[in-house]
């Protein structure tokens, strides 16, 4: 068996003395692992950094084998953000979440396109906004999309201020007023329904929102305990930037 594709390196582990097992989020085959002979060596180290865009050729005797990858670098992204602690944390969180959340060998073309947009935005100033939206896209692609378009109680599209932690649907401030469950609602950052400026405070609230559903919806579905440590570090960094 043999196929060629391109993708983003999301994980790399050394295997034996000189090989590496890598996970690549490919455009048409989703997250796909394979062995890179010589991938643990010095020559390949700059190429096999998380976030790298690779052209890959996968070969195996049968479909269900681990198989071997031949990789060609297309774009090195890690080096562009290594000097920026926040953007580097963003890169680590993105690749760690992809490795954590994506099922193996299942195509997610829409999420792949969103991921490329995010990774390409990382060296720029507004990447936290891209990242916050990307986490919601990840949830949606995994089948846990939030409904932030209209109020779950009244159907109103104006005045949306909260999200129900149980249903993942938006609620207006008016509908929540005086209700005994109002204190349990999650704040809905304005930029997620077309208003707001994506300020650091709004980004932090957006990450708290997506973090809740990643932890309470997606993690149990994947039978995983907790979220990747890299995401927690990113949230902590961006939270501090808000202060």
């Amino acid at each position: 068996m043999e196929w060629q594709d391109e993708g983003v390196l999301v994980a790399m582990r050394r295997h034996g003395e000189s090989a590496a097992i890598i996970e690549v989020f490919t455009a048409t085959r989703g997250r796909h692992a394979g062995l890179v002979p010589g991938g643990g060596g010095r020559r390949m180290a700059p190429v096999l950094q998380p976030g790298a865009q690779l052209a890959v050729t996968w070969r195996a005797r049968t479909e269900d084998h681990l198989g071997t990858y031949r990789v060609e670098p297309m774009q090195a992204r890690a080096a562009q953000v290594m000097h920026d602690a926040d953007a580097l944390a963003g890169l680590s969180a993105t690749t760690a979440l992809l490795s954590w959340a994506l099922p193996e060998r299942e195509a997610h073309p829409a999420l792949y396109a969103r991921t490329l947009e995010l990774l390409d935005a990382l060296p720029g100033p507004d990447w936290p906004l891209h990242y916050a939206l990307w986490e919601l896209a990840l949830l949606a692609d995994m089948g846990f999309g939030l409904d932030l378009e209209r109020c779950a109680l009244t159907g109103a599209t104006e005045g949306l201020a909260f999200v129900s932690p149980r249903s993942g649907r938006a609620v207006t401030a008016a509908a929540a007023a005086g209700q005994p469950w109002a204190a349990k609602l999650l704040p809905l950052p304005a930029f997620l329904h077309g208003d707001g400026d994506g300020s650091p405070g709004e980004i932090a609230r957006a990450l708290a929102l997506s973090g809740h559903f990643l932890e309470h919806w997606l993690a149990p579905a994947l039978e995983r305990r907790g979220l990747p440590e890299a995401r927690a570090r990113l949230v902590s960094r961006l939270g501090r930037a808000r202060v």
Partner: protein
Amino acid sequence: MSDGAGKEIERLIELMSRLPGLGPRSARRAVLAMIQRRSMMLEPLAQALADVSATARECVECGNIGTSDVCAICADPRRDASLVCVVEDVSDLWAMERTAQFRGRYHVLGGVLSALDGTGPEELRLPRLVALAGAPEVREVILALGTTVDGQTTAHYIAEALAGCSVEVSSLAQGVPVGGELDYLDDGTISAALRARRVMG
């Protein structure tokens, strides 16, 4: 598979083959070479192994491997105590020492933060580093960590952890290696080198 060499020799070959850079075939050749030079190789090696086994330990100050509680570098009064070089592992410390350019002291972290391996700050020797950086004689902490995502994530983390100490925190330069030709370098190295360019003359 037995070589017909006796179980003691087989055992030695098997142990040697677990060492980095050696496989069963090269371990067999090494063992044979040692046995054939018994007085010049095998016996001194056995003695050296026994000595190291009895004395090798981790330095309580920096985490280096030495033969006493405080390693030769930490015990050397000629070393500049105002400079501390932070490295990931003992092999990195030894690589720095080979250059004979650095005359300060070291701190071995014992790893780097890793999202994939689940290595968090609590697995690293960070509290000791923060205490060391707070000492009045320390002027600069040099972060000599790998130019990898994990290495640089750790470097940023340490720089923040030391923000409260009155020390300068620096890191090694990144760029074109000695003997490197641009045509053979990866894009990431070239962009890092471009960013770290300096004025000539």
